[in-house]
């Protein structure tokens, strides 16, 4: 039977239903346990990074090569015809989709990946479009949750830090809403979860609550999803007072459940004390490694009728 992601564009996490998400998770688990070097044999994948994103690009390109495929593309758009000669994105995609079997693209403008699907002959996988969507990040987050908790259902998860601008938080909350998670949002007022996201969760009957203090929540959590408060969003003095409220130290975790894992989309700056890295709760580096398996799963499902 043809897998439901075959030849699909992967633009927004909200377009994947629960069984499709589970298919990606199962496939990622299998590819992590039993590496397969032929799923992308003789396939060419275009890796188009119109803005730099080292971790995402290397993770995708590793995934392509580990599955036996080859990569064409660029790591930043400055040296391309788009930048040098003013070619439109639409024309660029028209041309490149003649060369490759799939396109992985990162772009600084919101909605660029959706636009690309209208001009591409081959499936487009969104590797981040401005502040909009980054579905492969959500899939690797979800895969890491599944790997550490053995299930995705009925988990208690706290999102901490910048919940206003963090697209990874919004997308993961949307995905977990299909698995009946209970969500705790811990953020300063200026970086609170946007109302439209809360409305969406409310409409799906998801239990959520807002908090200022993280420590008292920790004993009941299965997952703590940490994010970075970005310096450029605040005045210098305001930044220090806000950022210092949301830092993880080992002493905060004396009453944590043994299965608790801390995730972080990285890069980390000061918000997770380096001492945390040696605790059993730290899982953010394994999470980054899982990016390769989640992307292997996505690419192999999009490019193969059966996996």
């Amino acid at each position: 039977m043809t897998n439901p992601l075959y030849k699909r564009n992967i633009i927004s996490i909200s377009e994947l239903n629960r069984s499709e998400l589970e298919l990606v998770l199962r496939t990622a688990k299998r590819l992590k346990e039993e590496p397969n070097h032929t799923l992308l044999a003789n396939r060419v994948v275009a890796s188009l990074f119109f803005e730099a994103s080292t971790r995402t690009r290397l993770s995708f390109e590793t995934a392509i090569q580990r599955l036996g495929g080859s990569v064409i593309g660029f790591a930043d758009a400055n040296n391309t015809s788009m930048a040098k000669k003013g070619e439109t994105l639409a024309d660029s995609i028209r041309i490149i989709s003649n060369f490759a079997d799939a396109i992985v693209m990162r772009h600084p403008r919101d909605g660029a990946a959706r636009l690309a699907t209208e001009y591409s002959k081959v499936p487009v996988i969104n590797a981040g479009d401005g502040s909009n969507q980054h579905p492969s990040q959500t899939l690797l987050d979800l895969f890491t949750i599944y790997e550490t908790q053995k299930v995705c259902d009925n988990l208690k998860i706290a999102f901490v830090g910048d919940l206003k601008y963090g697209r990874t938080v919004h997308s993961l909350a949307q995905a977990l809403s299909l698995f009946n998670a209970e969500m705790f949002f811990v953020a300063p007022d200026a970086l609170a979860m946007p109302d439209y996201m809360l409305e969406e969760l409310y409409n799906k009957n998801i239990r959520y609550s807002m908090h200022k203090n993280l420590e008292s929540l920790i004993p009941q959590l299965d997952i703590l999803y940490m994010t970075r408060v970005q310096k450029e969003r605040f005045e210098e003095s305001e930044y220090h007072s806000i950022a210092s409220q949301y830092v993880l130290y080992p002493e905060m975790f004396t009453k944590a459940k043994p299965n608790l894992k801390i995730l972080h989309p990285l890069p980390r700056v000061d918000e997770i004390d380096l001492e945390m890295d040696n605790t059993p709760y730290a899982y953010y580096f394994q999470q980054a490694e899982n990016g390769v398996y989640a992307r292997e799963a996505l690419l192999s499902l999009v490019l193969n009728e059966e996996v």
Partner: protein
Amino acid sequence: MAKMQVEAITNGSVIDHIPAGQGINILKHFKMLDTQRTGAKITVGFNLPSKTLGFKDLIKVENKQLNQDQVNQLAILAPGVTVNIIEDSRVVMKYRPEIPEHISNVYKCPNSNCISNFEHVSTTFYVLRRATGLKLKCKYCEKTFDKDVVGQTLNSR
């Protein structure tokens, strides 16, 4: 009978019960201001007395019959309008806007970083009915806006 303030037409469409001030936006919406190029004959009345609205705007377009889809596009700007289709000086059809599922190629996306503001593409907004009123969600950047915020982009075209 009161003297007609706007001359009757023989064939075409009459857009009536437009809230005063919105007439100009409807002209922009239907790209009706470019009359030199299109040759369209259009009669407009602004700020006319109205029993139901107090004051209203009115637009008469000769030799052009709007259809239900086009009228539906007005659900965002002026949901209470009526559109009469005139043939041989008689009203042969009457339309009221129904809220459409999407609106294409009328408004700009208010998100300044949306790709639709950089590439030559038609915009499309999905219409969402929310407890707080009608919202429009951009097909490209997936951001959701209050209908009035999107409606204002007509003025920047």
